[in-house]
């Protein structure tokens, strides 16, 4: 019915869609989340820390289930867990960056804890509680109420302000750590602040697409943007735009095709954008290398076997 309407008259179809409160809340929250995920994701990809985003998504799962189990506010558990582990991962590596084996080790255990909490929570309250675990893993963007949506906006706005505030020095520190350090940029502190912001972003995004799929919003739009341009601010804007496009299109698709979960549709669009960007950059054969590798090549320090 709604699908037919939308096909016949797209504008009134979108109007009908947005007149429904649960859709409006979903759009408000996911717009805020997409903006910060796109921007934080850009730096995550630039710094080669995507695995940290993966880990923090899983940490969000454990934090949320711990909150459910102990009966405290779910968001308190989410934010506390992701920010704490983000800072821990920063402290385990040199210059605020952890080695991926350290990350893997910490988060395998955190996930094990999550499984314990899930098992305790499920056995303590029957099948309704089992569904709660799935909601945390895969998101429930259509289940947000107005208050939750606007809270997401406020937190995202604060995150955005801090991230844009440190964008310039963070960019410098990410592209050439050694030179940035020599010029007096507080590389280590910036690394910590950035990881804290990624923790907040992961907790925010968990509410939209779920703990397991946070990674996609962080990696896919940013990866696509870096494929298309090597200029940092343009890439940031592109990354945020791709993330926005993914959530808007994804929500609309799931609204039209009721059996598709919104988190899947959002990721499907994000992945399609990445594939399109990849194809485009291969066809136009412009060597759109990510900035960091270009700088590295220019500096004569081989980054790995690929540059050989």
């Amino acid at each position, binding site marked *: 019915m709604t699908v037919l309407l939308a096909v016949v008259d797209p504008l009134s179809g979108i109007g009908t869609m947005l007149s429904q409160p649960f859709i409006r809340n979903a759009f408000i929250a996911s717009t805020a989340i997409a903006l910060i995920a796109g921007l934080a994701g850009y730096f995550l*990809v*630039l*710094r*080669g820390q*995507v*695995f940290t985003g993966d880990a923090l998504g899983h940490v969000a799962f454990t934090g949320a289930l711990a909150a459910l189990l102990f009966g405290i506010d779910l968001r308190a558990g989410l934010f506390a867990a992701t920010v704490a582990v983000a800072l821990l991962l920063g402290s385990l590596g040199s210059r605020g960056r952890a080695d*991926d*084996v*350290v*990350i*893997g*080790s910490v988060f*395998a*255990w955190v*996930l*094990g*804890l999550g*499984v314990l909490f*899930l*098992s305790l929570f*499920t056995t303590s309250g029957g*099948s309704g509680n*089992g*569904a709660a675990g*799935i909601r945390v*893993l*895969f998101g429930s963007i259509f289940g947000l109420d107005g208050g939750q949506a606007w809270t997401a906006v406020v937190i995202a706005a604060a995150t955005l302000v801090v991230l844009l505030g440190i964008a310039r020095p963070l960019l410098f520190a990410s592209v050439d750590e050694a030179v940035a350090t020599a010029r007096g940029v507080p590389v280590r502190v910036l690394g910590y602040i950035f990881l804290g912001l990624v923790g907040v972003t992961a907790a925010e995004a968990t509410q939209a697409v*779920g703990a397991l*799929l946070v*990674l*996609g919003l*962080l*990696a*896919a739009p*940013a*990866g696509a943007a*870096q*494929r298309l341009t090597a200029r940092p601010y343009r890439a940031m804007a592109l990354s945020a735009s791709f993330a926005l496009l993914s959530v808007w299109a994804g929500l609309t698709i799931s609204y039209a095709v009721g*059996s598709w*979960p919104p*988190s*899947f549709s*959002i*990721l*499907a669009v*994000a*992945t399609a954008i*990445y594939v399109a960007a990849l194809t485009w950059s291969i066809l136009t054969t412009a*060597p759109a*290398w*990510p900035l*960091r*590798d270009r700088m590295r090549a220019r500096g004569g320090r*081989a*980054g*790995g*076997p*690929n*540059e*050989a």
Partner: protein
Amino acid sequence: MSAAPQITWNVVADIRQLFDYPFMVNALRAGTIVAVVAALIGWFMVLRREAFAGHTLAVVSFPGASAAILLGIAPAYGYFGFAVLAAMVFAVATLRGNGGRTEESAIIGTVQAFALGAGFLFVSLSHENVTGAQALLFGSFLGISNSDVIVLLAGAVATMGILALVARPLFFASIDPDVAAARGVPVRVLAVVFFLLLGVATAEASQITGSLLIFALLVLPAATAERLTARPGVSIVITVVIALLVTWIGLALSYYNNYPIGFHVTSLAFGAYVLAYVFQAAARRVPVAGMAR
């Protein structure tokens, strides 16, 4: 079950009690096979710093299994199909390779998130109950049949045989790709072969144990051994021993206290890792030579 198993001070009786039920015997057999396979593949994974790819290959078994359920085919096709597909994507991504490591990680992340999203779609479409989805993700050691164990063993022998064949050049290529390439070692082909081995081995093990446990067994024992010694032979032995011990003790603990096996195994393995970390920090005399870079 008429009498729940009770832990006593009589260790011999406790251990004998573990073998009272066929499901527990098969769980121990399957756990042993999975532990050895994961330890050996994981040792190379840690050496090559490919934990992210390993984690992703471990979780693509979820969409694989749920797709198979949706289509009504045997889960094994789904597991292997998705794992091989993901491994091929990584292989192509690394082969093209002008983007370097940052681009590679963006691709891996996208593949993982899309795969999990697709898995969720398949679960939603097939109206499977939520406990089914959680079993796919987190696994369970219950209900492993004799034929499961035989299939697992056959797959393990095959993958470990291939790993043994490529072990020496793979080791060389992992430690110093540039020199290995200069000496004529097919570094890129080996990278592809390794992704495929990692994918097939994790797919096979995930069917039994779920993706969480296999990832923990891939990364933690090898990461622990890496902190304890820089000698490859010793390191491999330590990795396998830790993997076996944590799996056996984890299974025994789950048998007695009913908490999930995934929690026990990850906690024990992480405990060993933390001990090794502290040990390494204490013995700062000779810093362990970075084995990969």
